[in-house]
């Protein structure tokens, strides 16, 4: 972790040096690691995001504090939410709704409550906050309009239970008056893919500056080889599984010879 931190700070300082003052307030951020590798001992990890709000001579002096939002967003998915109902006395999945283009992971850290950060339009536009993710319905739906909101709420609740969606107001820590950092825990069940790390600097409901960086979550080593084999050469993978099974069975019969 120390090594990553040092790297991150170095990268961050380099970023500071090259940052051009286009806007009045400039936001510079860096991630502790832009590659999260999943190995066989993976049980989740933390990433650290650093940043600084830099002001220059053009900056108007503002009253009050800045608001910061950091969002880590996973690759898009299409997800079906189902609701059970009684059918002939048995509980079965009866109603469903499919949401398209929802992030596989969404973790938000902010300095204030999401609803206090800005107008609904602004939050919707930048997908800030779980209630401002655009949960678009794909294809057909068997749900009456009046119950659609129940499905959205259930979807968000289940994803939060899985640890894949989170909203943590107050999770950004200011180290100095302009430097900040936050920890984003990545649970063990995070999907692989390319993640976006977005930072927003707001002041009294208006967006001053934003940054976006990429982060990769990938299986490495044995996990990657196994997964790729299963996806790309499924016949070979299946035969290999059978071979291992027969070999184990044979080995057992040799070791524990009974008759």
């Amino acid at each position, binding site marked *: *972790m120390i090594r990553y931190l040092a790297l991150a700070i170095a990268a961050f300082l380099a970023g500071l040096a090259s940052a051009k003052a286009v806007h009045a307030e400039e936001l510079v951020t860096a991630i502790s690691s832009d590659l999260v590798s*999943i*190995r*066989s*001992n*993976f*049980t989740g990890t933390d990433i650290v995001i650093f940043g600084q709000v830099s002001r220059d001579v053009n900056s108007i002096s503002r009253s009050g504090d800045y608001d910061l939002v950091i969002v880590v967003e996973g*690759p*898009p*998915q*299409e*997800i*079906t*939410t*189902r*609701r*059970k*109902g009684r059918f002939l*006395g*048995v*509980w*079965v*999945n009866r109603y*469903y709704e*499919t949401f398209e283009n929802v992030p*596989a992971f969404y973790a938000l850290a902010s300095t204030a409550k999401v609803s206090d950060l800005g107008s609904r339009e602004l939050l919707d536009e930048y997908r800030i906050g779980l209630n401002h993710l655009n949960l678009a319905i794909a294809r057909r739906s068997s749900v009456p309009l009046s119950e659609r909101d129940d*499905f959205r709420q*259930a979807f968000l609740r*289940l*994803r939060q239970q899985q640890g894949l969606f989170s909203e943590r107001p107050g999770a950004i820590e200011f180290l100095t008056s302009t430097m900040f950092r936050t920890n984003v825990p990545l649970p*063990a*069940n995070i*999907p*692989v*893919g390319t993640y976006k790390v977005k930072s927003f600097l707001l002041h009294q409901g208006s967006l001053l500056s934003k940054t976006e960086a990429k982060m990769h979550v990938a299986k490495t080593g*044995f*996990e*990657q080889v*196994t997964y790729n084999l*299963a996806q790309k050469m*499924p*016949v070979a*993978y*299946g*035969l*290999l*599984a*059978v071979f*291992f*099974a*027969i070999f*184990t*069975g*044979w*080995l*057992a*019969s040799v070791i*524990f010879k*009974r*008759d």
Partner: protein
Amino acid sequence: MRCDELRQPIVQLYLPIAEIPVNIFVIFGMGGAVGFLSGLFGIGGGFLLTPLLIFSGIPPAVSVATVTTQVVASSASAVISYWRRRAIDFKLAIMLLVGGVSGSTVGVMLFDLLQSLGQLDLVISLSYVTFLGTIGGLMLFESIRAIRRRKTGAKVTARRPGQHNWIHGLPFKMRFRQSKLYVSVIPILALGGIIGFLGTVLGIGGGFMMVPALIYLLRVPTSVVIGTSLFQILFTMSSATVLHAVSTQTVDIVLALTLMIGGVIGAQFGARMGQNLRGDQLRLLLALLVLAVGMRFAVDLLLTPEDLYSIAIVTGAGS
């Protein structure tokens, strides 16, 4: 390497296909416990292992597909010992197998379809309730009768070789020398097909259905029944593993290996203990076990679920 990494024992193992970390000792223990029971009762144990994995949080699709691989391992070691004793009717096994492979092909197709419809869990639960309930009930009834007969000292009616039932009237007859049978291939293919189909959809070997069917319906001599059934299961489940790997990519080789190693070790202890118990007592215990698993599924279907909602990834990362 950092100090905390050294201090932490390797307990959690990340499964590459299921995409979740599991406690390796828990999985190993499950494999061992089910292996023990399978050695004790002479069953594959798939019908116990699949629900255990599902209840412990492994996705149902991965559980079913991976257990087919585990069944291959446990039946392979048993087949070898029956082979040595020449207790396998290969001709009969191959005919069952032809049915079995076609059955599991249809099974994989249905599995895929049900998964996309979101009804896979329901079908798995309903099938478990139906089959385990029926088989468990029949076994319980039969074993209690056997124990009572033994206690009262009544004579057990032996199988008469000349006994016929409706199955012996079917056409396309074939001779099976080792089993001393001359029967139609239709019931054999159908039996293989049904068990291959169920095995693939439910992640079970089907030995606990195959053995009674061969004995009571086809009147195969008990000396070759278990070996033949295991041989057939070995090949049906091997093909089911490959079919699952191709169509749904849900076979987790790491999970399968952990289960197998636990399973084959457990089976040895189970088999040793099984030799000290009477056949009818064993069947009574097995019947109670089968019924208990069936009841567990029935309760889940009938009680109001804690959460009515569930989510499933259709496409994109992690689907």
